[in-house]
């Protein structure tokens, strides 16, 4: 056996690999630009969302409602797990206030409660509080509902709710170190006192500056729990100890697999509107949440009727609407919207130059993104707030903006190129940090192709989830970041373009904005309509500054089986109270038997 051929072969292989390494570099740039779409465009079904009329059938009792959800339940105690991650809390416990069901789709249809982050006192109704007053800015008085009992399980054993419970719960959430309220809003917690001024009367006192924050967090965010559970077990982190006044009792939990809730026969609420008015709630015998992290498995379960409700992306929705016409659906634009943030604070960076930002905005073909990529199933104007019934006053549709602002959102590559040259950047190199999923990279690939036509070379730096999240929370990216905005409930803090939170990713520090912000805070918690007006007035200026590049946001869909009644596509029945559709819904068991035989 000769050795020489061995080395020969090995060296050939190594040279090959070297050659490939150098070849590799050239393949990462896009070759050519194909932004004029060739070939046929698949027309997808797009029309305005159907109006689901209020139910006219008489509700019946019984049945199990099955949700499909993507993530595991992270915890059961609000002092340790945040409100948005402890989803079962919204079925087992309640807050002082929540959305007014009678003004929703089941009643007057003024609102549709599709956004999770709705936080306006003028649409709320009392839940554990029967009514409330705001005598002056800085004080709020709640009259606790009488005759509400906790769930009948030890150690609480179904006793009546009193003001002391409210005081205990709110104080606990303002003092426990891992509580979201305490850790995120320490100034508010320090300035607030909660006291019981009667067996069924609670008074909350806080400073004027923190009043807005307080009204966001304490009435419709903090859940009321019985103190016996904490005294006996130390905390409510074990699911077996979960107890509250809510319509369902947590009866089983298999981590990573499923949650089961059964009816609380002690529940105080009766159906407030519709043919079932006056009936004792809830209608359902039980509710199940199946944890299915894989998206195609979730959709498969929906198609084969193994689950009753599922959140669906726009592309699968088109498919379902075509092939499964019996399924009911609703769509809306979700209020956490993805945008391209830019470092506008670095003086030497091209992104601090307004002309550059405007050119970048004009260089994106929003109509192609909307009509071709999303099949028409998207909206262009989604930042800083989305369109919704509840916040109609704070939103301005594109057609109502002054012409200069409307022109920014027209695709004008020649003008963009000229503007860039004017600003002194005939060619530009930019880098954007994003998360390495195809959803994000696909959008950015298209933006990259658009910008090539105006002389901008964009490099897509796809990172893994935790690194991208870290870049977002610390705002520690170099030039551009693809990330999401804050929910609409915080619109009065102008948090997406003011302040130092992660949602002001573009480092905006504008005196005009600050002026409007100061004005806005005077009305926080007392006059929502005035805040809407202030917001509407500042929007044209905000958009003209092009602090972020929006993408067209596709609709989010909910699909549910036709035998689920008295559900109209809501996301929540309170501020970030996810998974509460089943509180008022009922299952038509006969219809289901007819359709799938069981």
């Amino acid at each position, binding site marked *: 056996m000769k050795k020489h051929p061995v080395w020969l072969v090995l060296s050939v292989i190594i040279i090959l690999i070297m050659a490939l390494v150098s070849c590799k570099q050239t393949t990462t740039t896009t070759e050519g630009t194909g932004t004029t779409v060739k070939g046929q465009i698949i027309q997808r079904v797009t029309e305005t969302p159907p109006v689901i009329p209020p139910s006219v059938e008489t509700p019946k009792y019984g049945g199990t409602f099955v949700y*499909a959800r993507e993530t*595991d339940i*992270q*915890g059961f105690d609000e002092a*340790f*797990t*945040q409100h*948005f*991650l402890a989803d079962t809390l919204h079925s087992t416990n309640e807050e002082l206030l929540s959305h007014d069901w009678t003004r929703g789709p089941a009643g007057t249809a003024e609102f549709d409660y599709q956004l999770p982050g709705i936080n306006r006192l003028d649409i709320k109704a009392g839940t554990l509080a029967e009514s409330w007053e705001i005598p002056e800015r800085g004080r709020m008085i709640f009259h606790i509902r009488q005759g509400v009992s906790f769930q009948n399980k030890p150690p609480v054993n179904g006793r009546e709710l009193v003001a002391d419970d409210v005081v205990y719960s709110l104080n606990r959430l303002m003092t426990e*170190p*891992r509580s*979201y309220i305490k*850790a*995120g*809003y*320490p*100034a508010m917690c320090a300035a607030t006192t909660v006291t019981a001024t009667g067996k069924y009367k609670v008074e909350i006192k806080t400073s004027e500056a923190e009043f807005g924050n307080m009204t966001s967090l304490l009435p419709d965010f903090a859940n009321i729990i019985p103190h016996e559970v904490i005294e006996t077990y130390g905390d409510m*982190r074990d699911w077996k100890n979960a107890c509250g006044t809510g319509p369902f009792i947590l009866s089983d939990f*298999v*981590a*990573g*697999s*499923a949650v089961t809730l059964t009816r609380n026969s002690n529940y105080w609420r009766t159906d407030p509107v519709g043919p079932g008015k006056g009936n004792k709630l809830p209608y359902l015998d039980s509710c*199940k949440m*199946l*944890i*299915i*992290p*894989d998206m*195609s*498995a979730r*959709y*498969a*379960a929906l*198609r*084969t009727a*193994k*689950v009753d409700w599922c959140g669906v992306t726009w592309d699968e929705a088109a498919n379902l609407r075509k*092939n499964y016409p019996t399924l009911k659906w609703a769509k809306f634009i979700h209020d956490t919207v993805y945008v391209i943030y830019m470092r506008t604070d670095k003086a030497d960076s091209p992104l601090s130059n307004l002309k550059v930002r405007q050119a970048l905005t004009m260089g994106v073909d929003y109509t192609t993104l909307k009509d071709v990529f999303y099949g028409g199933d998207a909206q262009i104007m989604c930042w800083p707030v989305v369109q919704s019934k509840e916040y109609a006053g704070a939103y301005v549709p594109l057609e109502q903006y002054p012409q200069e602002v409307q022109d920014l959102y027209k695709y004008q590559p020649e003008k963009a190129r000229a503007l860039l040259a004017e600003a002194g950047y005939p060619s530009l190199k930019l880098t954007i940090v994003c998360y390495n999923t195809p959803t994000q990279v696909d959008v950015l690939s298209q933006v990259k192709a658009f910008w090539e036509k105006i002389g901008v070379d964009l490099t897509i730096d796809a990172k*893994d*989830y*935790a*690194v*991208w*999240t*870290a870049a*977002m*929370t*610390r705002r520690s990216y170099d030039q551009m970041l693809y990330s999401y905005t*804050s929910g609409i409930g*915080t619109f009065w*803090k102008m*948090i997406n373009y003011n*302040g*130092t*939170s*992660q*949602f002001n990713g573009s480092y905006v520090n504008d005196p005009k904005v600050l002026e409007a912000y100061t004005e806005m805070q005077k009305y926080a918690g007392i006059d929502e309509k005035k805040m809407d007006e202030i917001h509407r007035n500042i929007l044209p200026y905000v958009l003209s500054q092009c602090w972020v590049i929006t993408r067209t946001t596709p609709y989010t869909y909910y699909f549910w089986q036709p035998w689920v009644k008295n559900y109209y596509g809501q996301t929540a029945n309170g501020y970030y109270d996810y998974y509460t559709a089943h509180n008022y819904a009922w299952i038509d068991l006969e219809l289901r038997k007819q359709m799938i035989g069981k």
Partner: protein
Amino acid sequence: MSTYIIRRLILIIPTLILVTIIVFLSVRFIPGSVIDLMSATMPPDVTADAEDARAYIKNVLGLDVPLHVQYARWFRGVVTGDLGDSLWTGRDITREILNRIPISLELGILALITSMIIAVPIGVYSAVRQDTIGDYIGRSVAIFCISLPGFWLGTMVVVFPSVWWGWSPSAQYIPITDDLGGNLLQFIIPAVIMGMVMSGTTMRMTRTMMLEVLRQDYVKTAWAKGLRERSVVVRHAMKNAMIPVVTIIGLQVPVLIGGSVIMERIFNLPGIGRLLLDALGQRDYPVISGVNVVMATAVLLINLVVDVVYAYLDPRISYR
């Protein structure tokens, strides 16, 4: 024999300690700390509050002490069987892992059985009929099985039947105690896919072992005596060829445990693989460390068992 076992057990200990150090350190090197992830869901309005929030989180999670102190604390827990609490859910990790191991174990055992059923007959047949059409077909089929990406098959099985036949795999995990039939039905598809993918290595090993054994003198003697083929193959060759197959099972164990990650994700089974995957995404350090330590220990112990069984079956080995 017993000295062999004791010697092996003693040798495991330094390996185990090395394993815990590797696991602990490597996890800390993962960029993107859990503190950033947690503060992503908190809205610190003012920078000062952001730092406070971070400090709170750090303190509560026990991450504000130096690294070797953290390691010592954790190691003490590991030795007593307490792997700590998850950073995100606060649940006891040991209990989580113990709850999930039976699922991964069941999947693994079913996959192993499937792979044996496929691999051993084909391997023996291929060896006995070497270089004939039967051998070619058998080997092609076996190699085809291991060339199919398991995750591709799994995704196909979940996506397409739901459209064609209105069937999808069970959306919820059915424990074996609740419904044996349903449970087996739920596990059989991912187990078969995993088994198919694993059968290639076993088939090759079986074939190689059989080929080697068939060249031995005692087999040639059997042929010369004029014994029937089945007698030679089954009574003389196979028994001796199967001994190393025990080693193969031991080698497959890490593959089993690792391979189940993808199947558990696609078929929605709450096993150990899923736990690790979720923990990695969320940077849940104690969970990552805990799962890795448990798995490594299991592999070491199973290897020891396999070696002992091998030594028992083949007396030439035990006194090395």
